[in-house]
């Protein structure tokens, strides 16, 4: 996926994706109409602090690990949310952890 504005079709699948598309479009139009400097950042999956390892427990990955300890096994493959392309770009793509 390019670092560029997307057609709305990329975001229609869920309200989550739609809200991101609307926010991006508001920023883009604001820049075009007023000259105000805007930056649009699509953030992938955030991971723990690179020094301390600190990472909130209220997320699917730590929830999966704690649950796996209780269940005695861990799932094999990548879990990726495929709700929509825009959802992927803004939160669901675990192959792109920072």
């Amino acid at each position, binding site marked *: *996926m*390019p*670092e*560029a*504005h997307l057609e709305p079709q990329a975001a229609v699948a869920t309200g989550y994706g739609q809200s991101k598309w609307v926010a*991006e479009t508001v*920023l*883009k139009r604001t*820049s*075009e109409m007023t*000259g105000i*400097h*805007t*930056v*649009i*950042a*699509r*953030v*992938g999956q*955030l*991971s*723990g*602090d*690179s020094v*301390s*390892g*600190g*990472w909130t*427990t209220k997320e*699917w990955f*730590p*929830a*999966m*690990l*704690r*649950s*796996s*300890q*209780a*269940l*005695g*096994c*861990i*799932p*094999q*493959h*990548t*879990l*990726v*949310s*495929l*709700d929509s*392309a825009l959802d992927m*770009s803004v939160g669901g*793509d*675990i*192959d*792109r*952890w*920072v």
Partner: protein
Amino acid sequence: MDVAATALVEMLDAPASMSGTVFHIAHPRPASGGTLFGHAGTLLGLPLVSHEEWLGRLKGANTGEVEAQMRIPALALLDFFEDSLGADGALVLSTERASAASRALREVKGLDESAVESWVKYWRKIGFLDA
């Protein structure tokens, strides 16, 4: 997350000519989720099983009691884990512009076993994961 935060600040300082630009704050040299799961399994001494088997065990553990929810937080995310099942064709996010604008992103360490180890160590320290 510290790298992502630094990258965001660096992007805000991007030249005005880049106004309205879209940046992807994502790892420029990604590790596959499967690899990271594998490292976690090794560290926790847990066997890797198929998604289907894991989901089956997860559902089987759903007693509806609060104690089960506490011990197995994935129960609250059952729909998410079911929807995500088997989807391993991850979309690749271009990070060309982001890397050009952010030194932190350009120089970010690779996500290897030691990264997973540091997260697991932290979660053990705070008592979220068993030792």
